[in-house]
């Protein structure tokens, strides 16, 4: 068998193809026949398509070629680490009691050996252990909704992926604690990292999940995560994605959600820092009365780039969706928002709302925002809107006339703009924490390099400007 890591001057796509051929037996060692076939199918798709580039319509404004052209390593097995992982992953969100799932460089960090069942009955484990111990569940759901729609990152993930997180919330189980997946990238070399998550919520169950992507060094990494989420009838699911990686790194995050009748899903994608981020979010409303809130906030500066590709599929009648993405772009930052809403022919009484609001702080910042509605039913309510603007000059003068400096008035207005999204966070300690992070980000004080964002053990810099008065 080949060594776990192949290094060399090979371009990333060739490296991955070679790894697939050379290490196929190792990669598929634990696979069921269906999983193995799925890998082969997706591998062939990848062989045909290769990585996307900006000549493709869906990647037109996201030049991922430069990043893909970097030399990368890719591990097929975890490397032993001598770091204190308990310390590394300790979460310091105050009053925020979470179950933590740790993923280091793409590898599930197993604290308890195999699958873990919480007191309330939620099953959490690695991709591998789920395959071994819950083959029926795995077979029933895995790979069903993660398709390659203009996104061959899904294919290469399905073909080669070795690890990730598996969560199963059985029927009727309501998880009281928020589950937190902390994914850290800590490598001394440039790494391509793949992850695959499978999350299943049974009928009448409830789960809130926080998914944090962080880097703790300044090396280039490219993370390719695919997450499939099945939300059963009447189930309630909240997903908070925190993205805070260094300026050299890239993140391609593809999330597929399938909702059954009367289920309620809220996703909130909070992008604070990263060289290049592509979020593909697809929500399929596959049961009557399902509701989805798909929200996002991006605060980018320097030459950072964020691309949110949102697909909401109204496949059944009487479903509602609410999409709101807000962004503040500074310097030469660029952003893309592509909001696709599909309403199937029989999906009557659909109510779909989409909005994308942007503030460009400098004329050098760019946003490309594109709503795209495809409606085949006749009794529907769909609305969409996009705004691009600067900070309101009337409001600026009003604040300054009350003695507030130009810099602080700007901060207040930017914070107010972001508040819509922050106020939508239902978990109070998390909301306070995010609130704090947004303020720090807007002040340019949020660090990504030395410590992970949830590790901000650094004492708060003393500042005169306190914009949080909710506590008095």
């Amino acid at each position: 068998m080949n060594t776990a890591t192949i290094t060399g001057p090979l371009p990333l796509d060739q490296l991955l193809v070679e790894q697939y051929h050379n290490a196929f037996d190792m990669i598929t060692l634990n696979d069921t026949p269906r999983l193995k076939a799925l890998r082969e199918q997706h591998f062939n798709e990848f062989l045909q398509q290769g990585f996307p580039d900006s000549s493709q319509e869906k990647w037109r404004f996201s030049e991922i070629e430069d990043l893909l052209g970097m030399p990368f390593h890719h591990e097929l097995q975890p490397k032993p680490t001598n770091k204190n992982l308990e310390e590394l992953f300790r979460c310091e969100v105050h009053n925020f009691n979470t179950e933590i799932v740790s993923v280091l460089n793409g590898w599930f960090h197993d604290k308890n050996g195999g699958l873990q069942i919480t007191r309330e009955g939620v099953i959490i484990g690695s991709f591998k252990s789920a395959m071994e111990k819950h083959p029926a569940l795995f077979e029933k759901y895995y790979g069903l909704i993660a398709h390659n729609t203009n996104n061959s990152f899904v294919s290469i993930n399905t073909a080669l992926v070795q690890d990730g997180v598996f969560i199963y919330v059985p029927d009727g189980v309501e998880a009281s604690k928020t589950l937190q997946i902390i994914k850290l990238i800590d490598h001394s070399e440039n790494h391509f990292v793949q992850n695959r998550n499978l999350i299943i919520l049974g009928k009448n169950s409830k789960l809130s999940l926080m998914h944090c992507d962080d880097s703790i060094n300044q090396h280039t990494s490219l993370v390719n995560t695919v997450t499939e989420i099945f939300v059963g009838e009447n189930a309630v699911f909240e997903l908070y994605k925190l993205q805070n990686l260094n300026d050299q790194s890239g993140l391609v995050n593809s999330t597929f959600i399938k909702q059954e009748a009367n289920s309620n899903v809220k996703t909130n994608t909070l992008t604070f820092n990263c060289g290049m981020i592509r979020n593909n979010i697809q929500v399929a409303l596959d049961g009557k009365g399902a509701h989805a809130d798909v929200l996002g906030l991006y605060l980018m500066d320097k030459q950072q780039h964020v691309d949110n590709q949102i697909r909401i599929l109204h496949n059944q009648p009487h479903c509602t969706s609410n999409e709101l993405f807000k962004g503040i772009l500074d310097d030469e930052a660029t952003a893309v928002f592509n909001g696709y809403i599909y309403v199937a022919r029989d999906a009557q009484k659909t109510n779909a709302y989409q909005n994308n609001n942007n503030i460009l702080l400098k004329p050098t910042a760019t946003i490309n925002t594109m709503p795209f509605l495809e409606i085949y039913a006749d009794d529907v309510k769909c609305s969409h809107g996009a705004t691009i603007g600067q900070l309101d000059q009337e409001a600026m003068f009003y604040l300054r006339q009350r003695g507030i400096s130009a810099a602080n008035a700007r901060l207040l207005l930017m914070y107010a703009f972001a508040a819509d999204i922050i106020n939508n966070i239902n978990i109070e300690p998390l909301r306070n924490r995010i609130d704090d992070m947004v303020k720090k980000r807007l002040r340019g004080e949020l660090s990504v390099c030395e410590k992970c964002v949830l590790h901000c053990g650094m004492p708060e810099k003393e500042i005169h400007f306190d914009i949080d008065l909710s506590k008095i």
Partner: protein
Amino acid sequence: MNILNELYEFTADFAICHITQKETEMLLNIKNLHVAIDGKEIIKGLNLGVNKGEVHAIMGPNGTGKSTLAAAITGREGYEITEGEIWYKGINIVEMDPDARANEGIFLSFQYPVEIPGVSMTNFMRTAINAKREYLNQAPISAGDFLKLMEEKKNLVEIHSKLTNRSVNEGFSGGEKKRNEIFQMAMLEPTLAILDETDSGLDIDALKVVAKGVNTLRSEDNAFVIITHYQRLLDYIVPDFVHVLYDGKIVKTGGKNLALELEAKGYEWIKENQLV
């Protein structure tokens, strides 16, 4: 006496206008002010002196430069001062930032208060108060003192709703917005308050509340400039001087009775006088 003041006195010797010692001690002294918006001259050589303890009313028909004057004094962007000086506490403030002017004690009650969704009233007020305290090298206000101050001033202008969870002016009725302006004025305790048509759109009860607020704050250490169309507000806030602004200049100055005369004769009377 600061250097600016000395410089002023020096240049004043060569100026045509006659400067007395009293004038340099004025709180606000506007000399030959010309203001243009997009190159169009709106204020055309205005002179106005305001001493501490005085209330001045500025009246005049629409489009004569009343709001432009307020914008020029408070330093709003886009209002170009092409000629003249605005002396405040002995300093020519023409080049001063709007926030610095505010922290020096100049307050504007806006004709159209701006709605700022997402910024709570409490947050806004504490930020403003602390900005002023920082400017004056004072420690930030404590949460307890701040709350007490808020309650006291809310009562003054009869705001009964909880402001903590309300965004600045968002969803406020016209009357509430104006009372909110007076509330902010009470919180910030300015030395020079300019009220730009605070009475417009107010019913008589709200008008009385606004007037009560102003009269309570009125003292020997501050001054008010009240811009209004109508004499009505001046029944409740009695001015020491009434000026008539017409075509970018003050064309007539008198006592409180001038307001009554204007009310009786209308602005046509001024226009006719101007034509003569």
